[in-house]
């Protein structure tokens, strides 16, 4: 079940983790609470209008700034099924893979997908289809090692399985 389908919400370049989840809400790490404030300082209405399965599309350097894992947690708990960006800041990239939030890097998709479009994503193939226009895009593939982590549903499961094998 690696087919995702949802509506696009677009954001610009350099979306920082303070915009994704402001520190004033970091006195909890309950995903449901964090989801209520997801993207609040970029778009205060986002948490209210996002639907399960929806997709965030952004420009370069998505998730820059603080290392707070609360950022991908908030996005995941808000129901977002995948983040597509031209590029990701490195800590956010690690965090998303570690907690099992699907992310895809594609400059073409980031530039072409417009807000409100319906998009289908085949995660295994890294294929992004704009159902409204028929265009398709291919994301930068993950190294096999990271695919391994993602296939286990995140880093913790990956470690637990490795430990059990020993």
């Amino acid at each position, binding site marked *: 079940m690696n087919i995702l389908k949802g509506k696009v919400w677009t954001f610009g370049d350099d979306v*920082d983790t303070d915009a994704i989840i402001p520190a004033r809400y970091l006195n909890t790490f309950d995903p449901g609470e964090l989801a209520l404030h997801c993207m609040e300082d970029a778009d205060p209405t986002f948490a209210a209008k996002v639907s399960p399965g929806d997709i965030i599309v952004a420009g370069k350097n998505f998730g820059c700034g603080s290392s707070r894992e609360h950022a991908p947690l908030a996005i995941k708990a808000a129901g977002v099924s995948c983040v597509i960006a031209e590029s990701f800041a490195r800590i956010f990239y690690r965090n998303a893979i570690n907690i099992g939030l699907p992310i895809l890097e594609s400059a073409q998709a980031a530039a072409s997908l417009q807000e409100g479009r319906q998009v289908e994503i085949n995660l295994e193939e890294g294929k992004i289809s704009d159902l409204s226009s028929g265009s398709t895009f291919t994301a930068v593939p993950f190294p096999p090692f990271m695919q391994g982590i993602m296939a286990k549903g995140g880093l913790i499961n990956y470690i637990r399985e490795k430990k059990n094998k020993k």
Partner: protein
Amino acid sequence: MGQTIVEKILARASGKKRVSPGDLINAKIDFALGNDITAPVAINEFKKTGAEKVFDKERIALIPDHFTPNKDIQTAEQVKLMRDFARQQGIIHYYEIGRMGIEHALLPELGLVLPGEVVIGADSHTCTYGALGAFATGVGSTDLAAVMATGELWFKVPHTIRIAFHGNLPPWVGGKDLILYTIGQLGVDGARYAALEFSGSAISRLDMDARFTISNMAIEAGAKAGLIPPDEVTRKYLTGRTARPYTAVLGDEGAPVAEEYNWDVESLEPQVSLPYSPANARPVSSVAGTEIDQVVIGSCTNGRIGDLRQAAALLKGKKVHPRVRLIVIPATQAIYLQAMREGLLEIFVEAGAAVSTPTCGPCLGGHMGILAGGEVAVATTNRNFVGRMGHPESRIYLAGPAVAAASAVSGVIAHPREIGGGDAR
């Protein structure tokens, strides 16, 4: 072919003869860090790994510094969770309120992070320790959990961008100005995934406090690490601070790097980064006269004794402008005590400043100086994103302690030379 300092450190830590940029490696971690925001999440994840004991109770630090002294019931619960875990695991480096400091000032001060080491912290400003010639990088809570369980972590070997600053620094220009200028030149993602390496005659002459400021903000250019090759200044700083042996690592002469910049500092003005990006760096004179409401001097970037001395040299015998609130936050208890002994705290209080116990507090919009809508601050902190210090419609200008102090007195953004007083450097 020669190797850079980062490549050599990561080769050693992964048990390889050499590594190249882009290689995926598994490295042994020498030291790991979490704070009251990130450690609770990590502890939760650690428990899920099935591990019962942390990999080494002497090589983990848990520091309550972000929302502390506890600002509300929820943060008190988060700190309690971390404290209970530290006790249960026998983690030695847990520092309680009254003994703690801002993590990135405290760990070097205690000699817990050393040249040649691989350090990870669940805090983006972990790159600060690059100033000691360590490979130090920020990660998330799950990565910290993995390290607490296994003592290892995967990395992609970064390429290196070398930045050399040449010449003598003009008065009032210090570490903060060099790093704001660097971020302004590279952009907020100009060093994404890269290791920055700072060198040159201007860097060699800087003391450790200024070097920590530079490495601290490498992340603001997207960098994974920000290293300064260890030298005599580094060695002197570490003397008497640490019982742990270390091997300083230097890059090979002529090791290839991805990019190289050579900048002359002699005509550099103090820098200010305008809202809402650390990359919006400009000479202070271009924004001089901008009215302000608050000034914060502190944080893991600029809360060290050298920063406080610089601010005090300008504030001595003067008053904070009636319209302005000045908040000074020494970064650790030791710095606080030193500032007290040197009479700096007296200068601040007599000038009309509030002096706080060590905390990250206002830097991340936590507490101890939150901004209202429409308010403007000059801060020696590291980020000026929308809503960073409070209301999404507040505005932050990032600067060094000299510009911050001069602005507090003037009530507007000001060049330090405008208010007189000596340069403490």
